[in-house]
């Protein structure tokens, strides 16, 4: 077992509670800003102290409230990549990387290790530049090199791509994933970006207002988010309250329709979610008359906002997204949803 976390921390009215384990894998914490995901990383790194709980990394107890153990960050061997990379000003890229090598006293060995890291990250040509002269992608590599040269037992990435231009993100995400795949330790990635989480992570835990849902496999989470927060964070646009009316049937008060569901409905159902891509004019099940209110054209997609025939006028319009080439000649009179695309939220 690589990392075990079970912590609680209160500050003001905010209550953070997180419990999860992370093996040698990419584990994502997905949450909106201010939900406590960075605070969780800080507790693991030892920058913040939880009120109670336990943090164990590879059998080493980093924090244990019962045994009064709170190791300083210097002793934890946890790598922390900050959102804006936190490179030391006034030091070159190489000096920044060598900072991570305090333990190695032999000067020649230090230089060699530094050079190896520069080569691994392919940043030898920027070795003598200072932080202010680096591009976002270069700064990220230097910060990563400074961490990896230390060979930490766990790597934590705090919104690592949010400071970068959108067109660079995809490229750097793939590169980082490849680089760290050979690294063979646990990687904890904090993000609010569902695409990034989906691309990078093996498993994901959703966090909302300090509370972390149980960690799920990435594909399972997107296929069946189960909670309202997870549905929103995985990009589900249409959420509405729902009532169980049968084993595989729910009633939607706002839309005044009954929907057939793919999974059996349990007690305690709060709402359902339907992704904007899930509507289909040719789908025979859950098919109801609709009135298109507005259409928006995007480079590769269309967005239609519509209401169901009997839908109450004060409830929000429903979003339907589809690829340009699927655009029908005339606006459809009715839309269907296949039962497995009705997400049950508890």
């Amino acid at each position, binding site marked *: 077992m690589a990392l075990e976390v079970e912590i609680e921390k209160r500050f003001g009215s905010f209550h953070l509670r997180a419990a999860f384990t992370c093996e040698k894998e990419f584990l994502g914490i997905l949450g909106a800003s201010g939900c406590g995901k960075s605070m969780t990383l800080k507790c693991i*790194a030892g920058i913040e102290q939880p009120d109670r709980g336990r943090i164990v990394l590879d059998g080493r107890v980093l924090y244990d409230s019962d045994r009064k153990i709170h190791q300083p960050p*210097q002793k934890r061997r946890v790598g922390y990549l900050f*959102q804006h990379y936190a490179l*030391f000003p006034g030091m070159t890229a190489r000096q920044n990387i060598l*900072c*991570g090598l305090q333990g190695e006293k032999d000067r020649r060995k230090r230089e060699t290790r530094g050079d190896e890291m520069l080569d691994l990250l392919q940043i030898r040509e920027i070795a003598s530049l200072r932080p202010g002269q680096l591009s976002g992608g270069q700064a990220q590599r230097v910060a990563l090199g400074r961490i990896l040269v230390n060979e930490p037992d766990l790597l934590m990435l705090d919104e690592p791509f949010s400071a970068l231009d959108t067109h660079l993100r995809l490229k750097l995400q793939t590169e980082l994933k490849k680089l760290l795949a050979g690294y063979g330790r646990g990687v904890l990635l904090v993000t609010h970006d569902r695409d990034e989480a989906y691309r990078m992570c093996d498993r994901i835990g959703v966090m909302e207002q300090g509370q972390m849902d149980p960690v799920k496999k990435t594909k399972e989470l997107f296929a069946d988010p189960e909670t309202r927060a997870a549905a929103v964070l995985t990009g589900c646009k249409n959420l509405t309250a729902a009532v169980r009316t049968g084993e595989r049937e729910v009633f939607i008060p706002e839309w005044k329709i009954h929907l057939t569901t793919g999974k059996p409905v349990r007690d305690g159902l709060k709402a359902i979610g339907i992704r904007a891509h899930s509507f289909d004019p040719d789908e025979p099940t859950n098919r109801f008359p609709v009135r298109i209110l507005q259409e928006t054209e995007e480079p590769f997609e269309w967005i239609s906002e519509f209401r169901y025939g009997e839908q109450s006028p004060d409830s929000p319009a429903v979003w339907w997204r589809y690829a340009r080439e699927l655009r029908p000649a005339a606006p459809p009179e009715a839309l269907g949803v296949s039962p497995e695309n009705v997400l049950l939220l508890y």
Partner: protein
Amino acid sequence: MTDLFPLWNSLRIAAISCVIVFFAGIFAAYKVARMPRVLKGILDVILTLPMVLPPTVCGYFLLLVFGTRRPVGKFLAEMGVKLVMNWPGGVAAAVAVAFPLMYRTARGAFESFDEDLAWSAQTLGLSNTWIFWRVRMRACRQGILAGTVLAFARALGEYGATSMLIGYTPGRTATVSTTVYQLWRTNDESGAFFWVMVNLAISAAVLLTVNLLERRERKPKWRLK
């Protein structure tokens, strides 16, 4: 030949008090910057007061503390340290008046410091002392340099508290600023003018040094490979 004692005296008072203020100001700024809000507000007022009070009022308070009949002054006198009417008293006066300048500029710099830098350094295994001097002080260098220069200039030009605490004794406690006043008062206009020019020259030199230091800082931006 004019007696240059006031210049020497002013410079040693300014230099010694500047060193004291540098460390005391940084220490206070670092501690206060991380205190809870209420305590911070109270301490901030106390530590900044000497800046807004008239220097003579500062001098009055210094006499209350260091006067030879007061407990602290008495104790120091027994230890062989006489501040009142002696040049080391000038250091006390200059420290009191210049401290807030160093403290406030350093505190401003510390407060705008990006704490992520210190945290990332900690997770890299770097010691807190190393982080303080190599990362925090490095990042806050502009503010700290500015504070030091301001404090030095203020210490050099101190008049009010100094004249109350150590008076004006030629060859013993006279500083540049007290000499200017004394010579002017005794109608030695050319003497006063000479010391005014000395003061101007020192101040200009200080400012020039700061500008040069700052330019040197900015220059090696894009280095040719």
